[in-house]
């Protein structure tokens, strides 16, 4: 990819360093090369032919959660994550896929999901649902497609998300279907691995399937799938994140909630909040539940700190990813809330994984779980 596509971005950098303030990676690793400013200057050096793509150079660009906290802080309006994503692609083109990402990318190309399993198992989360209807949520046509996402499909820790989403949609009498084994990865991990050029077949397949169902809109419980569709898919289908769809159902008085006397805090997922512009829908949902108290963290909305699950970091540097999760949990605990709610399967998986390892007394749940509980007592 030509570097002049991003040179306007790094030429705009005034090296003020304000992007360091909210970068979770910089807070852990300190050294300038790992900071957003450092990476921008390395990209600039590379663009001028003053830096070579070494293994270390590649690792530096992998050491980022692509959370976008730097981009929103930059007073010069530099789109830093655009540069970082572009650099990952440039590195992959010149040096090949990073060894730590290779198995995932190869699996994606073969199995069309991130978990190296047969894609037909994508709907297995339905197996232990006692209330499963005969159509198993796979209908020949429907107004709405519920796009489940890889993480919620394959990781047991997140499978309650689709289970509860289908319950909510059913309770609201939404005419919806899932794609089952025909849902393919949205392509997000490929972008993160600098292999965005291999995404086309995923886009074509998913679009074709959705169109064949005559669907008007798609609901995503994964903010990253939602983002990929918004940024890289055709725009003739209405796209909703689950929180936006549920908020709409609440506004239409389709859902009525039982009291839930909980004290919770809310974690803004990067791809829903900062990179998706949606901060209010999840908060409106939580505030619509009687008895539920929302205690905010110190850094919320655009300043929300990544849980460590972004940018493929858990594959390229799992130890660092864990450290970020640890930091996130510390901020969550400062609120005193016993439950952290988020609206992203990857955040749930990352935070819950760390909570279990550290044997902490903290409930981690997706907002669909809270809504299902208030709606149906499940």
């Amino acid at each position, binding site marked *: 990819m030509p570097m002049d596509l991003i040179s306007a971005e790094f*030429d*705009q950098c*005034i*090296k*003020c*360093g*304000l992007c*360091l*303030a*909210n970068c979770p990676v910089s807070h852990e690793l*300190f*050294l*300038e*090369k790992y*900071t957003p400013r*450092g990476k921008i*200057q*390395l990209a600039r*050096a590379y663009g001028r032919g*003053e*830096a*070579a793509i*070494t293994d*270390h*150079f590649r690792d*530096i660009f992998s050491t980022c959660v692509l959370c976008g906290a730097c981009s929103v802080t*930059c*007073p*010069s*309006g530099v789109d830093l994550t655009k540069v970082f994503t572009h650099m990952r692609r440039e590195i992959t083109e010149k040096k090949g896929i990073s060894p730590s990402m290779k198995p995932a990318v190869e699996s994606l190309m073969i199995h069309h999901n991130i978990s190296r399993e047969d894609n037909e198992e994508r709907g297995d989360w339905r197996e232990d649902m006692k209330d499963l209807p005969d159509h198993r949520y796979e209908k020949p046509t429907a107004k709405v497609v519920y796009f489940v996402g890889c993480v919620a499909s394959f990781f047991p820790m997140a499978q309650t998300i689709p289970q509860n989403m289908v319950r909510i949609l059913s309770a609201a009498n939404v005419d919806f279907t899932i794609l089952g084994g025909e849902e393919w990865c949205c392509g997000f991990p490929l972008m993160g691995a600098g292999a965005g050029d291999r995404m086309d077949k995923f886009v074509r397949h998913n679009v074709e399937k959705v169109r064949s169902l005559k669907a008007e809109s798609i609901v995503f419980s994964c903010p990253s799938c939602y983002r990929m569709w918004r940024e890289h898919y055709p725009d003739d289908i209405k796209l909703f994140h689950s929180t936006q769809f549920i908020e709409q159902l609440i506004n239409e008085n389709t859902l009525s909630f039982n009291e839930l006397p909980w004290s919770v805090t809310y974690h803004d997922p990067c791809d829903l909040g900062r990179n998706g512009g949606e901060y209010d829908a999840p908060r409106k949902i939580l505030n619509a539940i009687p008895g539920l108290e929302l205690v905010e963290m110190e850094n919320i909305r655009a300043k929300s700190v990544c849980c460590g699950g972004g940018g493929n970091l858990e594959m390229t540097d799992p130890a660092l990813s864990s450290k970020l999760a640890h930091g996130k949990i510390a901020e969550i605990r400062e609120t005193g809330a016993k439950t952290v709610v988020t609206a992203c399967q990857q955040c749930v998986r990352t935070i819950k994984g760390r909570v279990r390892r550290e044997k902490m007394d903290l409930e981690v749940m997706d907002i669909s779980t809270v809504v299902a509980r208030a709606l149906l007592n499940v």
Partner: protein
Amino acid sequence: MFSQAAADAMRAVLDDAWYLDQPEDIATYSYDGFLPEFTPDAILVPENAEQIARIMKIANKDKINIIPRGAGTNICGSSVAREGGVIMAFHRMNKILEIDRESMCAVVQPGVVNGDLQKKVAQYDLMYPPDPASMFVSTIGGNVSLNAGGPRGVKYGVTRDYLLGLKVVLPSGEIIKTGGKTLKNVSGYDLTRLLCGSEGTLGIFTEITLRLVPLPSAKTTLQAAYGDLDDAATTVTAIMAAGMVPTTLELMDRTVLDVISDYGGAQFNSDAEALLLIEVDGDEDLVNKQGERIEALCREKGAIAVERAHTPEEADKLWQARRTAFGAVASVRPNCIVEDATVPVKKLPDIIRKVVELTRKYDLQIAVLAHAGDGNLHPLIMTDLRDQEEMGRVDQMLEELCEAAIQMGGTLSGEHGIGIAKARFMNMEFSETSLDLMRGIKRVFDPNNILNPGSFL
């Protein structure tokens, strides 16, 4: 000069891992917030004063330049290897060692981020007042080196006013202590204050003792628009004359307001030539009373519109213009240079008019922000570094502006520092005798000229 033997010796002091010389490290420690870049030979990340002392002994013997660097946010080029050498970074010395509530002070390592200290001391109902715009990134070591100021300076003063003591490694490798935990201290020469603002040329700070003050419980925020710049300036002096010292007295000129509007921010009164943002802090009764009096004063002095915030949300809204200002101005052209000439408060309208005059004369785009309460001007020069012809005009404008500021009884730099940015103007402000004194001081501390050479002296 930087021999393999010296490199190996330094590497040994730092257990290998914290001696960095990969190309990616060299490239990313070649800059700070100022424009020119210089390639260092290596980067050292020590953990304590003893390691620094050992490194200084090696450096002093072999005459290897050492350039201390905090977060590299300074905008005068005071933390780059202008004459080669190694960068010393303090990322690992980032601990708050003590908060002494009774003596109202804190002892910190140089790598502590200003904002982290602020947050920590607030838990004790205390405040560390210096608040440079870089406070969420910049380190206390860097703040002391540059004697950093900030918007709160008008009421609370600058870093120097909160610096009580230092532990310092000298270029010889000897370790000294200056000052202490006492507010009053007249023993001997005031080495603490001499080191404050020395821009890394005299010694390396390894422990910093800072004075803290009680955290004010309330504040009141106002915004006033003026059709005439002089009226805004008169208001500033009138507020002070009435016995009130606001924490914030920020002035934005018409160009800033236009840029903010174009940027999609607030719209302002079309007759406004200047906007003042005023904030007072203290206990609730006091700030409410002061808020009323200031509002009346603004109107009396000719403000065409005054808004006073009654809730934190309203205050936040009033701050919005000031917060957006730099980003909005910086995005107009590829680069934005922040100037820092400072004049006595009553000369503020004169220097702003001078900026306007020079903007026309040199056909440039300049917006003016000012900490109006202390005469600290921040002309924001919107430019393009790649345009050499235009940069030539920027240089001429800067020179004339600095001359004007000094003629008005002001200084080259209020809070950003001299570094390599304004070294060439030092003889405007200082006589050869004064400069010789400074060079003499430098020689006493650093006879081999190894600490940040090529900076302002």
